[in-house]
């Protein structure tokens, strides 16, 4: 694990005041919107890199302070970093939808790591959706659904399907949200 400079984040609450349609129309698909896609793509890459490098301070700086489930998400990520050595997270099959101030991306992931204490090779996979929202000029992650790649996993293979996962009560809301 390495550290990075603390970033003082004072983001607005997630539910922002409704924006007039006229303002949206003026800004629809402007260069700023296209820039947002680049920014969010870079943000996903940073999340993955910080997780792989174990830099949880930088990782947390990219998470919205008002994200519902913030504690559980960060706790899971910190535990994973402590237990999984040399994690490699690969993303593929990305699809996305967007508005001018929010993006949802869905992807399939595969994670490979060496499990302590024997450094045994492990692999797990899943489907996840990440949600991002623009806060002033920067973007922050506001939610995650599906299989969380930033959590501890058991060795389940690169094409795992775990039916039990689908009926776990805590995942009621995620069951058919790919």
């Amino acid at each position, binding site marked *: *694990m390495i*550290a*990075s*400079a*603390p970033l003082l984040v*004072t983001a607005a*609450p997630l*539910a*922002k*005041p*409704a924006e*007039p*349609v*006229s303002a*949206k*129309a*003026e800004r*629809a*698909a402007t260069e700023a919107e*296209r820039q*947002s*896609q680049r920014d969010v793509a870079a943000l*996903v*890459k940073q999340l993955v890199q910080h997780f*792989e490098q*174990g830099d*949880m*301070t930088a990782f947390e700086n990219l998470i919205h302070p008002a994200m*519902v*489930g*913030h*504690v559980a998400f*960060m*706790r899971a990520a910190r535990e994973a970093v402590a237990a999984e*050595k040399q994690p*490699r997270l690969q993303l*593929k*099959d990305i699809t*996305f939808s*967007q508005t001018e101030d*929010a*993006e*949802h991306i*869905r992807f399939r992931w595969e994670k490979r790591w060496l499990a*302590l*204490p024997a*450094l045994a*090779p*492990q*692999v797990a996979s899943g489907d996840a*959706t990440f*949600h991002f929202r623009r806060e002033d000029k920067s973007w922050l992650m506001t*939610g995650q659904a599906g299989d969380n790649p930033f959590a501890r996993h058991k060795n389940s293979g690169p094409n795992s399907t775990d039916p039990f996962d689908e*009926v*776990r009560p805590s995942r*009621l*809301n*995620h*069951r*058919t949200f790919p």
Partner: protein
Amino acid sequence: MHVAKLARRPLLRPIAGFVLFVLAIGSAAASQDQANEHVLSLWAQTSQDGTATLVRQADGSTRLEWRLNLSQDVYRNVITAPQDSGQTITPFGTGDFNKTQFSTEVRLVSTGGDQAYLQWAGAASNDRAVLSRYREQLSNLQMGAVGPRYAVNAGDVAANFSQLGSTLGLRGLHVSRQFDGWALASHVGVIGESWEALANRAALDGRPARSRFLRDVYGAKLDRAWSGSLKTFLSFQGYEDRESSLPQAPFAPSTTRAGTMGFNYQQGQFLLTGEAARSRFQEKNLSERVDRAFVLDGTWRSGAWAFRGGWHDVGPLFVSLAQAVPPGVREHYLGADWTAAPWLMLGMDARDAVARTAALEFPSLDPELPPPPPLPATRNRARTLNSRANLNLGMASPSWMGWNMGVNAAQTRSEDASNQESSNDNFNAMLSYASAKWQFSSNMGIGKLSSAAAPTADSRSRNEQINLGRTWSETTATGLPVWSLGLQLNLGRNNQRLLSQGTSTTTSTLGVTMSGQRTGWGQASLALSESITTQPNGGADLKSRMAQLEMTRPLGTMNTLRAYYRYMQRNSGTATLETTERVGGIQINLIW
């Protein structure tokens, strides 16, 4: 000790050779994993500069323009992995691969400000590490029209009603309309894993196109602006699974209806939002489950202070179209940032969260078999305290210009459903310096993890990292860059002691990156690194080595040609883990 070992290696010889080869050097850094780069670039590609623009004519009318971005990769992978390791060690396979990515956008703007647009992005590849299930994939398809008081979008649309209302991406239609003081938004569509799953297209891996039901979704939201400060809203949404879309599913289809009401209040630097919701969720052959959810969040800035706080209570059986809201969360948080002096910023966030699951029963999917055993209710709690300080030393004294220092402490205490406690404490300190020519940063961190439920994971960790960079550049008299050259060196060490075993593992890394660019010529970079990891259970050290060369040459003003080569040897010294990946390829990016 390990860093010293690395330093003795002849790492600098290839660097010297590269200097003669490089056109110029700048600030590009080698990526950790080019595979992710490939995939993410597809997503970002739709937003490249070459998207359609419109030119307004002298008579006030508009002209339609379209733009097409096309990227073609041809590359060869040579992968060696332990026998019978399958895809456990590496996702890549040996072979010649190609990858095509495209995006296009057509846009028309009328004289009244109305716009109509179509955007489309997709990819094709024979590399299953990039596109795992299909040779071609539709990544995004969206079309619509927007005007001063309306918006109609179809295809891959995002609904973002509120925290507890519809917040999801769907394939369908999204319409919004504004009236005086009122706004109405509505969506209808379907959720599927992809356009390919929606079409039930046969996948290359032989598995079903869908692993989940297709879900029909709908929703509407009504906003009312009472004043410039206060807005309220009502929303209603729901879904229904298509049972026939997934034969022999291992779980039952379900339906949900959820209603929410909320407000936004903003006065100066004070912002408060709140929402209450109620949902009715039903799985096939089970009784209806009703639950509620509440959220309240606020921020306030006053002088040197910024405060934030919130309270979230989501019932364990609450199911809405707020895709990323986990059921069962009850949490509150309070945080503040204080600019104590121009050179000193202090911050703190405290959080307390309870995660609950309800006792649940499950229907039998086969009438002749008994239903699965019910799951008991669970409850666990976690509390975190994150405190930090950032010192901009240059603001305190001009002689320290460019220097920054920061410290961060994060503590987590948790109790699981069996009241077994665990803790995770981390402390990091950072010192950095940046000027036009020199960059320096050093990080030090210590961590402690203990868990009564899983004591084998108890450990202490210690991390150190140093980065040093030097930049050379030349600009014209008017300040335009001519060339730049950069060199970066990084050293790192991570040690983790496993308390229950009484053993430890240490990873030491050494890396050098050279990069640069020259206007009109292009840019190039070379990254080299080595690392050594000791095994906690004994055995040979795991040695890894990486070299990555990348060159980009502009073709005209908008197109580029890129060549890359990456060599990565992982964990040599252990037959069961040793892997070598060689990837070399050419990429051309064209914009019409």
